[in-house]
């Protein structure tokens, strides 16, 4: 079981887009805008994720918990994970609806329940607020889905509630372009499905023992994004290894305990962020070792690997 928290790392340039559009739209007559375009990225969202592997089904279950920070201006009403992986058996809290985007690698959870409506609610023709959105300071869990693909770092998008732009007629919108979901959301990174299991970096220097430990879904000297998700697989080729001898140092700091079993054989996953881990922006070196039996012999040997990766 993995559990970790992640704050957003960047926001879209919607403000810049809106400023640019306001310049462009200077020519037409004064528009009768009733509801202007509102920046729906005005939320501060922390995502906690738990990843477990079910050996019976062969699926990883990704469970998310969202916390809307006190800095959020809007109530959170949508949360999407960016992934190309197959996603199934999605679950959502009451009043929320899970579903994929069309032709986009996004899996979304949206607050759709509107009842009970606010006592002062008046139907203006616009989209009403949801009764189950996440208000500033609140936490809501129960978002989950399964996937056959292992964990890697993915982007997430969170959007706050705001009425959509409204005007008397179409001409009033002249010069105003409505951004799509990904351009009008708070963007962060979290853990989701999508690891490339076809990529295993095993060191390559001592073929007889390289299979004792391999890094899955990552190549040496890759540039990664935070949080860094490192998957290890012991006995890549079915070798016999002694997992009690496993050691791992990230930038010379012991991180062996950060690699947690997912339940998928001898697979372990470690998640490293700037806060609470030795990972740094720039060059990072993860050094591992594990003892095992050299195939075809009774001899014990050690497989030591060094994975270098970079953080922009």
């Amino acid at each position: 079981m993995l559990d970790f928290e992640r704050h957003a790392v960047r926001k879209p340039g919607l403000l810049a887009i809106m400023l640019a559009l306001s310049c462009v739209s200077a020519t037409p007559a004064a528009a009768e805008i009733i509801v202007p375009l509102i920046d729906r990225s005005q939320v501060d969202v922390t995502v906690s994720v738990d990843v477990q592997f079910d050996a019976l089904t062969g699926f990883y279950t990704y469970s998310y918990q969202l916390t809307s920070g006190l800095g959020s201006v809007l109530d959170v009403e949508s949360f999407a994970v960016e992934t190309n992986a197959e996603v199934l058996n999605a679950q959502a809290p009451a009043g929320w609806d899970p579903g994929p985007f069309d032709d986009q690698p996004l899996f979304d959870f949206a607050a759709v329940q509107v009842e009970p409506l606010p006592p002062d609610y008046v139907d203006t023709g616009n989209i009403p607020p949801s009764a189950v959105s996440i208000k500033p300071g609140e936490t809501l869990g129960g978002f989950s889905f399964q996937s056959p693909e292992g964990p890697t770092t993915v982007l997430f998008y969170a959007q706050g509630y705001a009425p959509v732009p409204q005007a008397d007629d179409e001409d009033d919108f002249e010069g105003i372009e409505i951004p799509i979901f990904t351009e009008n959301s708070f963007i962060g990174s979290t853990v989701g499905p999508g690891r490339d299991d076809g990529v295993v970096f095993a060191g390559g220097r001592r073929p007889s023992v390289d299979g004792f430990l391999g890094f899955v879904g990552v190549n040496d000297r890759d540039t990664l994004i935070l949080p860094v998700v490192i998957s290890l697989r012991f006995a890549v080729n079915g070798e016999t290894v002694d997992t009690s001898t496993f050691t791992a140092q990230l930038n010379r700091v012991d991180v062996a305990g950060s690699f947690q079993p997912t339940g998928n054989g001898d697979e372990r996953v470690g998640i490293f962020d700037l806060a609470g881990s030795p990972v740094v922006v720039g060059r990072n070196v993860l050094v591992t070792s594990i003892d095992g039996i050299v195939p075809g012999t009774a001899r014990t040997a050690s497989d030591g690997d060094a994975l270098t990766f970079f953080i922009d």
Partner: protein
Amino acid sequence: MSQISTYRGSMCRSLRATAIAIAGMAAVVSAAFAADLRIGIGERYVDESGQEQMRVMTMEEFMAAAATPQFFEIRPSVRFLSSGNNVEQENNVAFACVNAFTGQLILFCDITVTLEDVIDDGGHHHVDPAFPRPLGEFDPPSGNSGADGFFDTTYIAPEVSGSVLFRVVGVDTIGGAFIPPIELSILVRVPNLVNLPPSPIYDLIGDVPGVHIFNHFGTSVMNAKVTKLATAFTAKFPGRKLELNDISLPLGGIFDVCARAGDCASGQKPWQFPHRTHRFGDNIDVRSFTVSATEKREFEKIATRLKLTLKVENKPPHFHLTFFGTLPP
């Protein structure tokens, strides 16, 4: 026509230049011979050395070109959009008078081009003599072919789609012969718009008999998105159907929803705005006043996941959806 090349030095941005030659008799043509004058077509091209050349098309080539529904096709222009998508659609054309038998150019020939409406075309069934359909223009509409034998002009497409007839006549200023006219057609349209067919999962509304009876032409991608939207909505609310209003007219271009006097309180006239984005097949209006609060919420979610951006317009109350990803021509 495959050898037609962009006319060097012209304002044409995207379309091939087309040249038409009006074939006449040799330098001195008497009225008695005028009945023998025939029409031929020529074209500009760039030869292997990169030099621009003019070639007079054979009679057979002209007949083949004239037999097509339109001599050339062009997208409607887009003007007055401050979103930066304004595009003047132009096509350079060169006219010349030539000897039909020798192929020699008749120099200093006066050539005039006029345009004529095709009634009931482009999805516009309304006719109001006080407001004739914009046909675009040839700029300049007339001139002398001069010492090189060619009169160069540019067709500038209107914002309104539909067929436009053009007539070209010439006068040999040296020989005094009148060169009989040719008449050809230009098709102004947004290509590849497809009618959204009727379906039990949605209602098509908004057609106006005698004005615009086909108002649901969209790009194939947009139509697929709309169908998915309606399907998901009906699946969520069994028995309920979205009421789908205007997408675009069959050939795109300006959708003058205020085509008849009194249609719009704001006083717009035929061939004008509003409805300015309903010209490329990637915008649709959906009636909203019959949609409950719960349904509105679901509607927004479905639209968002389909990459359709959403606005609300009040007069009359409706959702306006735009498919992000399809840009004007």
